[in-house]
């Protein structure tokens, strides 16, 4: 009995570990570069040269629309006709959400809810369904929403390819569909809303880091996990910039977005190489952990990029870091509501609806810092004029 119990227990432990540690097994670029101590490996299969060129151009494009409301602005607008969706009266707007599983999405969703409240005179009902990060649930959610007499459907897809048929089915049901944040492989939605994108994000951070450090210095690149398009595009743009600057990329490591793991990785690299001259990250959630690793090791914090999360901005200011924060603004969660209402008015909207993607630098840092907001809040929420600010976001 004991023998079989032990064996069963061992199996369950292994299964548990398999689902719990979730460590990327396919990290050829990470391994190779770590061993060789230089280079960034092969370009990602997600890389598309035309998209890269387009996004880098968009970074410098002048937006149309009100300057103080970037969530209403558009880069290179391409207007589409929406007259056939015109509908009088108050509207029922439905939203199928991929997940609420990180602070970025939490802040974004609160912003969206506040936008709904601000537009209460025009919205009779707002239905939100959380897919909890599961494709299958989101497909079922969208299917359910089709039977609920929504006037417009907003979708933030969990994954691109798997959700495409569900979005197409919603389009065929005749209601206007607005997709935002992550995309789908179909042109059927009335509009697709997102900021400049991953190439722009990755490029801005990598350019800064490689320019602020000594030539040929050692860069550590920290990524969350492989295989996610928005993160892959960030890395592939950074790769180009880092290679061009001829810096020595000593490591490309996956952190799983975990601060403890991040600190250990950075600490290990500091020990292995003595100094690290620059840190590039594909997302800012663990930027503070990376900074702390240098602080705890008694080393100066090298030039690095984070994101617009307030804990990082505060640390940047307090410790006078050499830093930059490309953003993926949470204000984009306001835009789908505005777009849906415009479509139901029959007013033209741009498709794609490309939003500006501002960068926080030393010069404008102070304007985004707000000590009264919680550390995990995102500065670029565009939410200060919305009902319930600041309490709703605390």
């Amino acid at each position, binding site marked *: 009995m*004991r*023998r079989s*119990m*032990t*064996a*069963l*227990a*061992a199996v*369950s*432990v*292994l299964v*548990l*570990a*398999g689902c*719990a*540690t*979730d*460590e*990327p*097994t396919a*990290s050829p670029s*990470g*391994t190779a570069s*770590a*061993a060789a101590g230089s280079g960034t490996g092969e370009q990602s299969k997600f890389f598309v040269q035309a998209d890269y060129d387009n996004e880098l151009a968009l970074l410098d494009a002048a937006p149309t629309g009100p300057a103080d409301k970037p969530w209403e602005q558009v880069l290179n607008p391409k207007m589409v006709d929406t007259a056939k969706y015109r509908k009088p009266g108050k509207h029922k707007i439905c939203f199928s959400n991929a*997940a*609420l*599983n*990180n*602070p970025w*999405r*939490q802040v974004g969703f609160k912003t969206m809810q506040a936008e709904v409240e601000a537009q209460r005179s025009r919205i009779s009902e707002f239905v939100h369904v959380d897919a*909890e990060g599961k494709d299958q649930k989101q497909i079922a959610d969208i299917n359910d929403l089709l039977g609920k007499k929504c006037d417009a459907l907003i979708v933030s897809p969990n994954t691109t390819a798997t959700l495409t048929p569900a979005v197409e089915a919603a389009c065929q049901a005749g209601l206007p569909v607005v997709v935002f944040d992550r995309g789908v492989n179909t042109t059927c939605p009335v509009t697709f809303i997102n900021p400049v994108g991953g190439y722009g994000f990755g490029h801005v951070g990598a350019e800064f880091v490689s320019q602020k450090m000594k030539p040929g210095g050692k860069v550590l690149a920290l990524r969350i996990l492989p295989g996610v398009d928005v993160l892959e595009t960030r890395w592939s743009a950074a790769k180009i910039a880092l290679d061009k600057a001829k810096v020595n990329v000593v490591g490309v*490591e*996956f952190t*799983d*977005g*975990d*601060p*403890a*793991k*991040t*600190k*250990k*990785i950075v*600490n*290990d690299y500091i*020990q*292995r190489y*003595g100094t690290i001259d620059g840190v590039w990250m594909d997302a800012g959630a663990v930027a*503070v*952990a990376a900074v*702390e690793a240098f602080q*705890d*090791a008694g080393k100066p914090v090298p030039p690095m990029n984070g994101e617009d999360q307030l*804990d990082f901005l505060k640390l940047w200011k307090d410790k006078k870091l050499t830093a930059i924060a490309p953003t993926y603004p949470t204000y984009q969660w306001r835009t789908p509501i505005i777009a849906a209402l415009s479509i139901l008015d029959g007013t033209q909207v741009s498709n794609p609806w490309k939003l500006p993607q501002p960068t926080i630098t030393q010069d404008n840092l102070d304007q985004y810092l707000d000590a009264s907001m*919680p*550390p*995990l809040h995102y500065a670029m929420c565009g939410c200060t004029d919305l009902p319930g600010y600041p309490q709703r976001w605390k």
Partner: protein
Amino acid sequence: MRVAERRPLPLRIRTDGIAPIVALLVVLLILVAFVQPDFLAPSSLMSFLGRSAPIILLAAGQYFVIVCGEFDLSVGSLVTAQVVVAARLIDSDPSRTWPVVVLLLAGGALVGLVNGLVTTVLRVPSFITTLGMFLILVGAVYLWSDGAPKGGLSEEFRRFGRRAIEDVPLLGRIPYALLVLVVVAAVAVVLTRSDFGRTLVAVGDNPRTAELSGVRVVRTKTIAFMLSGLAAAVAAILLGGYSGVSFQAGVGLEFGAITAVVLGGVALGGGRGSVVGAMLGALTLETLFALMNFTGVSGALRSTVQGVIILLAVAVSSLRSSSSR
């Protein structure tokens, strides 16, 4: 309490099963010294011990459960839950630090109590009980926090896991985490040398005989689970301090702790091994990972290494238990 009288010589307790792990640790340290001499500099070594403290504590907690013939797979999720709860309750307010620390310790013991009672009174196999607890905690935290941590940990709270007494002669620095570890380790060693510790081993060795000898098996095992829960609470305080608020603070730790325990010569299925061996197992595992890093081996291989260790340990313990029959 006849079982308690089966007291081996003190000298034997000290060496029982520890020699191989000490040898392995020494070999690894020599290899590390070869690859990365800086690693053995006092201040660097102290930092390493400090950040290894949580997993060593968890291994100590896991020892109590494993040596009496059970498992605790809930510790990783318990650590996550505690870090998330601490962040939300403290909400960056230093004055709430100590009440929350007390609350975390009580919470850890309570989760252990539930695990223990379900396992002993309801007779649910412990890896089912604690797997269930794992899922309950993951779900509860998700529900409570909407899937993303809120609030923040105070500097006061983070001190335990992050800060150190600096400028110490010879050693360079002594992390607070290391001090906490030393205290907990001392308590653990005293416990295992007490009647309770021997009873625990007897229960793991043969629960039926122990019961017939008058040992309260239910109480003994339940206390073992509570100790594991307490160890997880202390680990959560150190880990939260080390890395800050995270929804992944404890991911995979149960596996690391079990690997460390079996590496330290504790038999899966119970009845053999020492808590010092378990803690040295954790330290050895961390040293092995450090060595893998210094030699540029991919971090992804860590899972594989842990898997191999577990499989070998189970194979060895199965062979032993079948040959002894």
